[in-house]
C-alpha cells in the first residue's frame, strides 16, 4: 500500500474552510481514481515489455 495516499500534511493548521475544500477535493479525486483504467495502458505496458524481451 502507498501510505502517501492517506497522509494529510499539517492538518491541524488548517481552517474549517480548508478542511471542507480538502474533503471535496478528495471526493472529486477519488471519483476519478475509481474509474476503470482504459485497457490501452495495460496493453501498452505489455507491448513495451514484449519489445524489450525481443531485443
Amino acid at each position, binding site marked *: 500500500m*502507498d501510505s*502517501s*495516499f*492517506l*497522509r*494529510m*500534511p*499539517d492538518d491541524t*493548521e*488548517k*481552517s*474549517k*474552510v*480548508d478542511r*471542507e*475544500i*480538502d474533503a*471535496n*477535493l*478528495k*471526493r*472529486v*479525486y*477519488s*471519483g*476519478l*481514481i*475509481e*474509474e476503470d*483504467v*482504459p485497457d*490501452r*495502458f*495495460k496493453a*501498452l*505496458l505489455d507491448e*513495451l*515489455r514484449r519489445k524489450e524481451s525481443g531485443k
Partner: protein
Amino acid sequence: MTDSADPRDELTTHLAAMRAFAISLTRNVSTADDLVQESIVKAWTNIDKYKPGTNMRAWLFTILRNTFYSERRKRKREVEDPDGAFSASLVERPGHDARLAFGEFVKAFDTLSPEHREVLVLVGAEGFSYEEAAETMGVAVGTVKSRANRARARLAELLGLENGENVMADIDSTTLAVLGKSETAAA
C-alpha cells in the same frame, strides 16, 4: 537484482492515479489519456533514473506534469474544452446529500489555473507532503505552501465560503470577476 524486482512492475498500480492527475490538469479525458500514454513510455524508457525505494507515484507525477507543461508551452494557444470536460466527466456520479454544493465545487475547481489545480490535487487530494509536492512540481517548499493557500483562497471565494484565518481575505470582487477567465496567475 532479479527480474522480479523490476520497478516497472509497479507501474500498473499507479495508472489510475496518473489518469486522475492527468484529468485534473487537462480537464479533458482524451487529452489526459494521451498524456498518460506518453508518460508511461517516458517512465519505461527512463526507469534507470528512478531510485528504488523512493516514492514512485511522485516520480511518475513529475514526468506527467513536466510533459503537460512543456506541451502546453509549445502549443501557445491551448485548446481547452469550452464545455468543461472535467465537470462533464463527474456529472454522472451518483448524487449524495450535498450534490448541488459538490457540483458547484467541481465547477469552481474547473476555473482554476492548472498550477492551482495541480497543487490542490497533490497536497489536498493525494496527500503529498509539501516536500514531495515541491519535488514533483520543481519549486521550493515555500512556493508550494503559498500556492496551495492562494488556490484554496480562490476556491473559497468562488464558492462564497467564509475565509479562515490562514487564507487570504483580501481578494476583492473585481479580482474575483477576473478569476473565472484568468489562466495566467500561477502564484
